[in-house]
């Protein structure tokens, strides 16, 4: 194993690093070696390409929606086309981007690396998962090309089961298959984290990213089958004309909503928990401090996963749901704020008195904390029954969940991609452009969605493409913000791609981070480590940049010496890891 012992900036201007000889990227180069690979890192790359593709499609649909909403009369699209457009946006973004984004890309790449394993427990299952995903994506694309659906991504019955004349069945089969792809990933992570941790990697030495992936996988495994079979019942109902969810035939449409949200509310945590894991890694690294309250963050992750399954009824306060159920769901929804706040306070406490470095990943992580806090706090308005009755199906809801899903999940994804890009590709991207993009994303995002809180509070309903003229100012602001946001998302696509061609070779540990994944080459060899690592230190074993402070703050002298070249105890002893 080789360690970089750079003392100064993470990107040493003059220093050049040799590219490692044997990496997972140059192990083989045929198309077959990629399409039939069992290597978790290659599958992560395959996933990265496919989720980016569907993210771009979902973004395109969003752009058309925002363009349409600049005018109160709805000039550009027919009613039905507009309905199909927001349905397409939701289906692409939720099922094909947000849910697989961090687990299937960063999780796939990092879970074995972070716990010191050679691969995931079931490499072939992992590959099957990607093929299921692409099949699902293909079916959904086919459905879109045949005219799309007008039901929204929620497929509420009885409209979806009895009345809609669009490609509901085809879409649902696609989503059903996408569900199995995430179940495969979930099972793989659960097993790998349980059984394949390196010697010494105890549960409480795991990076918080791993805790997040674990909690996410539990939600995936428990929730996804529920929505899969529920949507299949909708298909059967369409095919046979029987009314499990149709009131005129004796069925119960609210049952669909219960079953749908039993998965789809926890699915929000499938999107946000991995981002929280990414944020914990980045915040700790760029504050050069041990994370504050490690075990509180770890257990709050599990608490969110558990509570997340008990709050689905807050989507249904205005249905026929019993008032007493609504009260219970409301109280439990408030409870979710507790573990969420624990995380936010702990991140803040980590930054406090840290040697903060405002790198691009750190900017995304800080953006995450702010946006997630706004998204979370506005959730309280929707969790209390009285205000929710007023706000149900307004733009307030739209703004709330975009703050959580875009401001939260997407910021986490981009932050993670920037943080681990040197490890994944072995290349350094342009830090200046990256900071600009992070800033543009943050500004554009707030400009897009903050006005939507206001216009929603004033009564603008979601899913309409025409509206009273007094709302136009808000919508124009929002659309202008969307353009800035789009710019902030296109720029990374350009400089990250450029870094593949012209980027400088990255050192093994460009951020001087302490996770196991940084102790192998960039990019890593096929089996990740030259030898099975033995872990003798806890996660986030950071020491401040200032050597004078480090002298007092040192936790593990051996590690500090390896990472900074400082011999904190002055005894001239080398660390025990070499």
């Amino acid at each position: 194993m080789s360690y970089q012992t750079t003392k100064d900036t993470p990107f040493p201007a003059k220093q050049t690093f040799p590219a490692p000889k044997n990496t997972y990227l140059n192990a083989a180069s045929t198309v077959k070696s990629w399409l039939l690979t069992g290597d978790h890192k290659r599958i992560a790359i395959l996933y990265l390409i496919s989720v980016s593709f569907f993210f771009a499609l979902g973004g395109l649909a969003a752009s058309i929606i925002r363009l349409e909403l600049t005018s109160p009369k709805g000039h550009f699209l027919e009613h039905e086309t507009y309905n199909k457009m927001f349905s397409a946006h939701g289906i692409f973004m939720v099922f094909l981007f947000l849910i697989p984004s961090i687990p299937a890309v960063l999780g796939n790449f990092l879970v074995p690396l972070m716990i010191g394993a050679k691969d995931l427990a079931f490499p072939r299952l992992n590959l099957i998962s990607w093929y299921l995903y692409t099949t699902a994506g293909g079916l959904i694309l086919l459905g879109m090309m045949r005219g799309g659906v007008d039901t929204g991504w929620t497929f509420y019955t009885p409209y979806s089961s009895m009345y809609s004349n669009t490609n509901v069945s085809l879409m649902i089969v696609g989503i059903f298959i996408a569900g199995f792809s995430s179940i495969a990933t979930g099972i793989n992570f659960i097993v790998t984290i349980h059984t394949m941790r390196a010697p010494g990697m105890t549960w409480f030495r795991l990076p918080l990213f791993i805790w997040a992936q674990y909690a996410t996988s539990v939600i995936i495994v428990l929730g996804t089958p529920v929505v899969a079979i529920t949507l299949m019942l909708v298909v059967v109902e369409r095919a046979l004309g029987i009314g499990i969810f149709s009131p005129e035939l004796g069925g119960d449409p609210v049952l669909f909503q219960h079953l749908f949200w039993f998965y789809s509310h926890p699915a929000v945590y499938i999107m946000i928990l991995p981002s929280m894991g990414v944020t914990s890694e980045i915040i700790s690294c760029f504050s050069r401090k041990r994370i504050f309250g490690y075990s509180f963050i770890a257990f709050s992750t599990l608490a969110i996963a558990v509570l997340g399954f008990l709050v689905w009824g807050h989507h249904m306060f205005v249905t026929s749901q019993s008032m007493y159920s609504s009260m219970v769901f409301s109280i439990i929804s408030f409870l979710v704020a507790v573990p969420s706040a624990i995380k936010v306070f702990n991140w803040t406490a980590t930054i406090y008195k840290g040697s903060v470095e405002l790198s691009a990943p750190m900017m995304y992580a800080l953006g995450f904390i702010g946006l997630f806090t706004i998204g979370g706090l506005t959730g309280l308005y929707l969790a209390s029954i009285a205000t929710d009755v007023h706000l149900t199906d307004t733009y307030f809801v739209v703004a709330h969940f975009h703050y959580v899903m875009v401001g939260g999940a997407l910021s986490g994804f981009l932050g993670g991609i920037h943080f681990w890009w040197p490890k994944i590709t072995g290349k350094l991207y342009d830090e200046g452009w990256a900071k600009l993009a992070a800033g543009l994303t943050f500004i554009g995002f707030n400009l897009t969605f903050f006005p939507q809180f206001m216009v929603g509070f004033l009564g603008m309903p979601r899913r309409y493409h025409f509206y009273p003229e007094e709302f136009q100012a808000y919508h124009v602001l929002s659309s202008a913000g969307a353009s800035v946001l789009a710019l902030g998302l296109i720029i990374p696509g350009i400089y990250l791609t450029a870094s593949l061609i012209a980027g400088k070779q990255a050192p093994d540990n460009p951020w001087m981070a302490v996770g196991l994944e940084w102790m192998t080459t960039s990019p890593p060899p096929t089996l990740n480590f030259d030898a099975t690592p033995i872990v003798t230190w806890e996660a986030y074993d950071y020491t401040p940049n200032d050597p004078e402070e480090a002298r007092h703050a040192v936790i593990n002298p051996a590690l500090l010496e390896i990472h900074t070249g400082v011999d904190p105890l002055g005894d001239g002893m080398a660390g025990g890891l070499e």
Partner: protein
Amino acid sequence: MSVDAISTTHGLVGHDDHAHHDPNQAHQFEDMAQQNESYIVGMWSFLVTEIMFFGVLFIAYSLNRLLHPGSFIDAHRHLNVWFGGINTVILLTSSLTMALAVRAAQLQSKVAQLVFLTITILCAFGFLGIKTVEYTHKYHEHLIPGANFHYVSVGAEGGPSAEAAVNPEKSNIPQGQAQIFFLLYFFMTGLHGIHVVIGIIAMTTLFIMIKFDHPFTRYYMWVEMAGLYWHFVDIVWIFLFPLFYLIPGK
């Protein structure tokens, strides 16, 4: 695996050190103990997803039975409790022989594995055979949900009530509610039947591999996992049988 076990069994082992590896060990695992544990944890996680999968249908069943108790009692009289009961006995027997097959695999006894797998597979076919007879009866009685569905109420003593036989519209329960009962019946037993078919395929594959001494089968875990799966299929039926065939009537 406990931390103690890790520290004693692992050291700094290079990846090219394959000299003492069990040939059944996949490259990503450190040793066989880790591999065995991974397979078992993986299989149980998979079974959890299966439970959630069927769980939705049990919820849908419970809700509809609460909403339409009379219709469910009436409709369930179309099911023959003897067919269901015999199938329950058959599946329970197959679970016993499957457990014995797993035991035989752990002891690496080829003959015993082949015998017990054969009995299990035959039981599975017997189950599907009886199910086919039942489905055929339902087809002739126009009880398959869809365009041709035509429900005739049955009296408690069997046979259509005199009134309903003449005019099905007078049947004392709505067609829609009867249809929901039979949709749930066919969806749930059908999904269970698909699982039985998958079980037959898995067990037959194992049977052939054991018969021809495929090196894979020196590893008992494949039979063990097929066993876990088969017991799950059995347990689902243990719930389906009383819910559809044994609804207490007045």
